[in-house]
Structure formats: structure tokens, C-alpha cells
């Protein structure tokens, strides 16, 4: 069992003919993900992966022809907002955007538009999702995780791999791993995932990987304290990061002094979360 993706996921890949898109489509298919179509405007009618996956000119055409129910976006940052709008307008309920470097104001427009559409976005600037043994949507290497009962949610990319790998070395597996991305404005957040893990019968424990900046970990701590029955273990990156060189007063007015690793760790510990000193300590805290 899992959240968000499983063996019934019918995946579309936006930007399938690009370097990264093609490389990771190959990896996803090799993992067993049901990739039903790709989109690259201007390349409709072509096939990739030795004739296994058809390419369409638009998301709408691809959905009509294949019944795709999730999409993963690999297009460059300047085209990614349009790709997200297009997927939402085509009615795809789950959009996973891997692309990094999307301008913040674009993301504010995308997020506010998607909220009206009741579409779930994961990312951008994220590694995607992995339900070990069933489906992989994005770029998380498949061979670093095994199926299990630990839900993993993370703001980071490669740090998430580090944690999955550490779990696997100890024989521990994941129900689903969700990389929600590190951008200031993104789609799915910690609380969304904690809530889904809380309600997933096959997830028994949760690992939450946060980092400095913003207040999402503090909100997660509050959610854990009030709404969660399953144990949560956490790691927060950036304990030695120098304070940001900020300018102007607006940031301080909006966020106050929140956002340091120490503050987040304190909030999580107060909510009963065990916080690891480094990622490889996580498995022992889960035992």
C-alpha cells in the first residue's frame, strides 16, 4: 500500500524527448512504472523507447488517447509553468514537476490557479515520488529503496536518497517516498503528506526531512502534536548554515526570526518527534 502512486498509476511524461526526460523515462519504465505517453510539442506521432511509448503534441491529446492519470514534468524552467497549467487544464489529477529554477512569481500564479482546480501538485524542484516495488514517478533512483511500512516525506532531493539508502542498508523499507521540493512556493506540503500517511493503513512510521527557511516544519510539528498517532522521526538540514544575507525589512516583518534549524528542531521535539543528528542515525531512531 502507498499514497499518491501505485501500480495503477498511468503516467504521462511532459518533455519526454529531452535529455533528462528520456533518460529518466527509461529508468522509470525499467523500474516497472506504467508510462503510457509522452508530450513534446512538435513531435507528436513519434515514438520513444523502441516504439514502446507514443509522443503527443499536447497533454489533452495524450490524455484522450491513453487515459493518463498522472504526469511528470521535465521541461526547462522557462516552460515549466505553462506545462503545469496545461496539465491542470487537461484534468490530470496528479502533477509532479521535477524542474528546478522556476521563478517564484510564476509559482505563485500556478499554485493559486491549481488551488481553484483541485489538482494535486508535487514540486517543483523535487525528485518526485517512489512507491518501492510498484511505481516510480520522477528521478529517485529505484535501487536505493525497498518496499516497507515507513512513509518518507522530504523537502530535499538528494538528501532524501541518502535517507532511503540508509533505511535500506538496515533492511527497512518505504511505503511511499514523497519529495515535495525545496522551493519557497510549491504544491503538496508536509501536512498534506503527514495526513495521507496517517490514513494509509500500510504506513506505520513516518520520516520527515526538513531544512532551514520558511515555517513548514513548525506547522508540521503542530499537526503531528494534534492530529497524528503514528510515530515521526525527523532530520533538519542546515544546522551550520550561515545566516542568510538578507536585505530590506519585509522578510523580517513577514517571518520574524523563524526558519532556523534550531527553532525547527525545538518545535519538532516539543511535538514528540525524535530528531536525528545526521541522516544515517534515522534507522536506529525508528527501531
Amino acid at each position, binding site marked *: 500500500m502507498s499514497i499518491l502512486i501505485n501500480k495503477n498509476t498511468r503516467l504521462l511524461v511532459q518533455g519526454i524527448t529531452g535529455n*533528462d526526460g528520456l533518460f*529518466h523515462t527509461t529508468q522509470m519504465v525499467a523500474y516497472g512504472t506504467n508510462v503510457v505517453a509522452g508530450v513534446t510539442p512538435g513531435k507528436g506521432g513519434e515514438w520513444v523507447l523502441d516504439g514502446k511509448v507514443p509522443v503527443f503534441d499536447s497533454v489533452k491529446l495524450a490524455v484522450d488517447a491513453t487515459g493518463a492519470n498522472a504526469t511528470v514534468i521535465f521541461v526547462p*524552467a*522557462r516552460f515549466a509553468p505553462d506545462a503545469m497549467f496545461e496539465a491542470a487544464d487537461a484534468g490530470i489529477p496528479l502533477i509532479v514537476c*521535477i524542474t*528546478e*529554477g*522556476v*521563478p*517564484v*512569481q*510564476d509559482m*505563485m*500564479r500556478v499554485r*493559486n*490557479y491549481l488551488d481553484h482546480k483541485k489538482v494535486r501538485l508535487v514540486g517543483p524542484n523535487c*525528485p518526485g515520488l517512489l512507491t518501492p516495488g510498484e511505481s516510480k514517478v520522477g*528521478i*529517485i*533512483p529505484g535501487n*536505493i529503496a525497498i518496499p516497507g511500512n515507513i512513509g518518507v516525506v522530504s*523537502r*530535499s*532531493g*538528494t*538528501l*532524501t*536518497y*541518502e535517507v532511503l*539508502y*540508509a533505511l535500506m542498508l538496515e533492511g527497512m523499507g518505504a511505503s511511499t517516498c514523497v519529495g515535495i521540493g*525545496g522551493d*519557497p*512556493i510549491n504544491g503538496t506540503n508536509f501536512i498534506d503528506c503527514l495526513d495521507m500517511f496517517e490514513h494509509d493503513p500500510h504506513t506505520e512510521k513516518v520520516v520527515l*526531512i526538513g*531544512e532551514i527557511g*520558511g*515555517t513548514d516544519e513548525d506547522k508540521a510539528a503542530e499537526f503531528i502534536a494534534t492530529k497524528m498517532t503514528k510515530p515521526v522521526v525527523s*532530520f533538519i*538540514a*542546515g*544546522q*551550520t*548554515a*550561515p545566516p542568510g*544575507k538578507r*536585505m*530590506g*525589512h*519585509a*522578510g*523580517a*516583518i*513577514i*517571518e*520574524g526570526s523563524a526558519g532556523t534549524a534550531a527553532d525547527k528542531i525545538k518545535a519538532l521535539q516539543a511535538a514528540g518527534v525524535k530528531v536525528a*543528528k*545526521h*541522516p*544515517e542515525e534515522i534507522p536506529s531512531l525508528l527501531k
Partner: protein
Amino acid sequence: MKLHEYQSKTIFAKYGIPIPKGRVAATADEAKQIAEELGGRAVIKAQVLVGGRGKAGGVKVAKNSDEAAEYADQILSMTIKGLRVRKVLVDEAAAIAHEIYFSITNDRAARKPVMIASAAGGVDIEEVAATTPEKIIKVHIDPLLGLRDYQARDIAASIDLPRELWRDFSKIATSLWNVYRENDAELAEINPLVVTKDNKLVALDGKMLIDDNSLFRHPDLAEIRDIDEEAPAETDARRHGLSFIKLDGSIGCMVNGAGLAMTSMDIVKLFGGEPANFLDIGGGAKADKVAAAMRIILSDPNVKAILFNIFGGITRCDEVAKGILAAMDEVKPKVPMVVRLVGTNAEEGRKLLENANMITAETLADAAKKAVAAAK
């Protein structure tokens, strides 16, 4: 990317926000000439990309052009918070009746732009926000609709602006929204926006922060970046698309992904070392980028060891290995190097580095310990 006050105010003026007459000067003679054009009395303001310059003595009011030259000379020889002052802005001195704080920034928690205003503007605005938050007005703007006229009027009314100034204030609010929106600003701030003694609104100071990710569609802004204000290694890193921050330790770190890069620094410190830098080579880095990253790390004489921690996802470990080899060939590093490759194409990467005389590590903790030992 930060803009100087004079750059921000030039943009403000382009959008119709009233600013004081004045120009930027790099020498005392230029400052004197500008002061003369302004009628003698002028404000001399250091142009550095840090806050607190007023309290550091970087802002002075000159009564005449000779004094303007004298103050400009003083300020141009100052270093404020480690940054040398290279330019001063010479502005006409305003007769200030009242100071307002006014800005737009991103509210990440609300996922919307927020317009912030206060009748208690000036240098102590953060103090005001902390002690009397009710004096700070915040209005969220729908990013799909933009600023509505009524929102601007509401702000004018709630900061107790006299009614006869509401129309002018609304125009400034609309302009500031356009400045923010059209330049992909993360911050557009006027502090203070003053009411002058003859009852006019003027933006006396300006700050702008531009979203680096948006610079592809703002070549004009990318052009005016002041690279004198950056450490040369940071400029070099940015040109190669690397995210780099120099620190004071002895262990150079090259990592893919910001979260893992921070974690690698944390764990180096946890095992008794000090990181020399934060360096994220980003996702999908190719060999040339890795080579550039290695040159940048080695340009720091404090570096006694390098830790490479690569967990391949979109980044392929064999590409990173190729970059390391290319850079070693070119730079001939003398410091010990600890390398850990895991994930996409890790096996291929490790094979490439087999004969490169590097210390290898399996786990992150192992890599950090070995790097700390190697730096001693």
C-alpha cells in the same frame, strides 16, 4: 540579486514613482558637481548592498557643494560591514514632514504577494514590527488578479494618510505593484516614503531584490548586477551555474543538491571539522561544471581536504567522475580528497576514479570522518 538604492530608484522613476532629483557619483568631484546642480544642499548616501549604512555613518546631509565633496570623500573611503563603498548617491535634500514604510514582497506561507505599509516608517521599522505589530498593515494580493484599486485606498486610509494624498498614494501603490510584477522582484521596498512639508509623496530610499531564477527574461537587470560586491569565487560560481557560499573552515565540500550540501556541512562539523564552503553543483551537472566547481574550491588557500559527496539521481556519477578527472588534470591538486559516489551510474563513476588516488567512502558519516582526518 540585490539592486543598489540608485538602481532601484531609477526603476521606480520609470514606473512613475516620484523620487528626489539626484545622481550617482564615484568621486568627490563628481559629488560636488551634482550638489551644485541641485543648488548646494544635498544628501550623500553610500551605495552598498547591506542594511544599516545610515547607522554606520554612510549617510550625511551637506549644506553646500564643498561639504558635499568633503562628505563624499569620507564616505567613499568607508567599508561598511566588510563592503567597500565605491559609489555615493547625491540626492536633493527633502523637507520631511512624515515617514511611511511601504513595500511588496513574497509571503511564502500565504503563497501570495503581500503589500506592507506602516505610518511608522524609517530605520526602526523592524523594531515597530516586533513591538507594535498593529502598526503594520499587510494586504495580500491575488497573483492572478493583481493589486485592486480598493486595496490601495484601504492601505492609504489605514496608515492615516490625509485624504488629499490618497489619489497620489494609490498611483504609487499601483506603480510599486507593477515594479514588483514586471521585474520579478522578491522585494520592492520604499523606506521611507515621505510626505514632504509641501504635502507631496516622495520615495526617499529604495531597495529591490530580483529573483535570480527569473533573470533569463530580464537581460537588462542581469546586466546591472554589481559584481564588485561579490567575492570573486561567488561570481565565478554563478557564471557556471553553481550555488556557492564561502565559509571559513578547511574542508572543501562538493555536493549535489542544496539539502545534502547543507547536511554534508553539518556532519563535517558534527565530527569535529569546519566546512570551507557550501557548494551545490545542482541537478544534472556535467563534467565541465564539476571541473569549475573543483577549481573554485581549490582557489581557497584554507582548503586542506575536499569532500565529494554525490548521490546520483538526475546527476550521473560517471559525469561527476569525468569532471573530477578533468579538473585534477588541469589543477593538479595537492590536498587529499575523499569521494563518495552513490546512486545513478555510481559503479561507472567509481571505476573511472579507480586510479585517481582518492580516499573512498561508503557512508556519509564515513566520508565526513575521513575528510576531517585528512584535513588535520
